[in-house]
């Protein structure tokens, strides 16, 4: 597809029917968690879209984010690459290698200076530039150089957004996030380890369709990170009733009760797993019987243990159904007004407990 032609013109030339385009717009709206009423707006905007250049840089990462992206089934990577964006540089996906690859990056930067989108996965070593280099260029130098000509930056994965695993204690490389180094460009954080495939593509399409999305205080798009896992979890009614699994093979676990006592970080984790789900919308960790690890939150590796329950009040949790999260009290929408005073009291008294403590308490 030529960069000069609009998406609408290109689809028409290829004989793609209007129905097909409307189907793409409907599934894109669903993927972006937008109300169906927005489908005509998406259609009108995408039709006029000219493909922007995208440069994708990978630093201290495990390629999990790219692996995730390539498994996007709704607005597939093929749709994105061939119809919506011009992916001009990506180590893993591009055919070119060595100096030819770097030349492609430089040409894309020159041709689209000030207008291209920079996508970054992986954190950047801050202590010693030698920890991670590409074609002899340190990650930090490459990021600063490419970011200078970018219209906006999308930090994909918890490593690029918050430092991620490389940043975990004791952080041997002095890893930092993109926003630690870049202060003069709009940055959209798309955390997760990895992020949900449809969320990666959804954020890109949302950005291209509507510009910079509404962000939360951590720079995450509200459309995908606006609700906690807990609030959208199908096991939430069990939490409200005080019904918990106490081990992975007890009756509660078999009945699908809440995994809070097994260390679920759903109450303090904001992501779209409970609604968008994984593997073509098949399931998500809690549905598979495992607590949420909280991978889309900063420093989740150092949050005290994946199987340790969040701080809870010393009262009987089964009766009160309240808790104090690591970031303070999280107000549950379904909790009644009569519990508010008790919740405030719980915050004052909260303490961190282990799963063994909880077992004794139950």
């Amino acid at each position, binding site marked *: 597809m030529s960069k000069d032609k609009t998406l609408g013109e290109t689809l028409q030339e290829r004989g793609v029917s209007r129905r097909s385009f409307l189907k793409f717009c409907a599934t894109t709206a*669903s993927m972006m968690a937008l109300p169906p009423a927005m489908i005509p707006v998406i259609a009108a905007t995408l039709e006029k879209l000219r493909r922007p250049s995208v440069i994708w840089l990978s630093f201290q990462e495990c390629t999990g984010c790219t692996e995730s992206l390539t498994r996007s089934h709704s607005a597939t990577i093929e749709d994105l690459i061939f119809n919506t964006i011009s992916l001009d540089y990506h180590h893993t996906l591009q055919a070119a290698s060595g100096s030819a690859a770097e030349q492609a990056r430089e040409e894309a930067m020159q041709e689209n200076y000030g207008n291209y989108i920079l996508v970054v996965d992986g954190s950047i070593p801050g202590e010693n530039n030698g920890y991670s280099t590409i074609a002899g260029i340190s990650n930090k130098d490459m990021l600063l150089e490419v970011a200078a000509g970018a219209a906006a930056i999308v930090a994909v994965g918890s490593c690029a957004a918050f430092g991620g695993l490389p940043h975990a204690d004791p952080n041997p490389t002095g890893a930092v996030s993109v926003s630690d180094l870049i202060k003069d460009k709009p940055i959209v954080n798309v955390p997760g380890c990895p992020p949900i495939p449809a969320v990666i593509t959804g954020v890109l399409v949302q950005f291209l369709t509507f510009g910079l999305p509404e962000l939360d205080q951590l720079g995450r798009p509200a459309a995908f990170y606006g609700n906690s896992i807990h609030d959208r979890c199908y096991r939430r009614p069990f939490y409200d009733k005080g019904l918990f699994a106490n081990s992975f093979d007890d009756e509660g676990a078999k*009945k699908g009760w809440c995994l809070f006592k097994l260390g679920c970080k759903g109450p303090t984790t904001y992501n779209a797993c409970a609604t968008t789900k994984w593997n073509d919308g098949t399931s998500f960790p809690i549905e598979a019987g495992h607590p949420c690890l909280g991978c889309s939150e900063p420093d989740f590796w150092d949050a005290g243990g994946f199987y340790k329950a969040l701080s809870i009040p010393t009262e009987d949790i089964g009766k009160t159904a309240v808790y104090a999260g690591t970031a303070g009290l999280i107000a549950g929408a379904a909790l009644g007004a009569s519990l508010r005073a008790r919740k405030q009291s719980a915050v004052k008294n909260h303490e961190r407990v282990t799963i063994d403590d909880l077992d004794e308490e139950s």
Partner: protein
Amino acid sequence: MTANGMPAPGFAASAPCAPATGNLVPLMHEIRHALTRWLEQGEKRVIDLRSIPLAPGEEDRLLEQLGEGEVTARLSIQGPSDIIETRYPGVWLVTHYDENESIMGRFIEVCEVPGILTSQADDIRAGLERLKDQLSNAETTA
């Protein structure tokens, strides 16, 4: 029995002991309100099922409750799409699949006919051009 000969469904919010969000009954009421609004004001309503938390098995129970009515259509557009009128006229289940038949999106539409089922003006225009070309070629070769 209902007017179209199908057995009247008894609405079960959940099977015994099955995990449940409690969202099925409110969802059916939302459909009821949407049908009323369409009759009174002609307002179309689209509900994206992906945006609603549902426990494993709840979506199947919803589809069971909605059932199948008089119209079923399959579109071949970048992968199939199934358009099914439920046992409640005006309530349509629209499911989009990709080429591998993985579900890309599922919607409940409350309207006369889902928009994607009707012929689109751009496609009619392109078809007309093809028809003209075909007739023109036929006259040339005749």
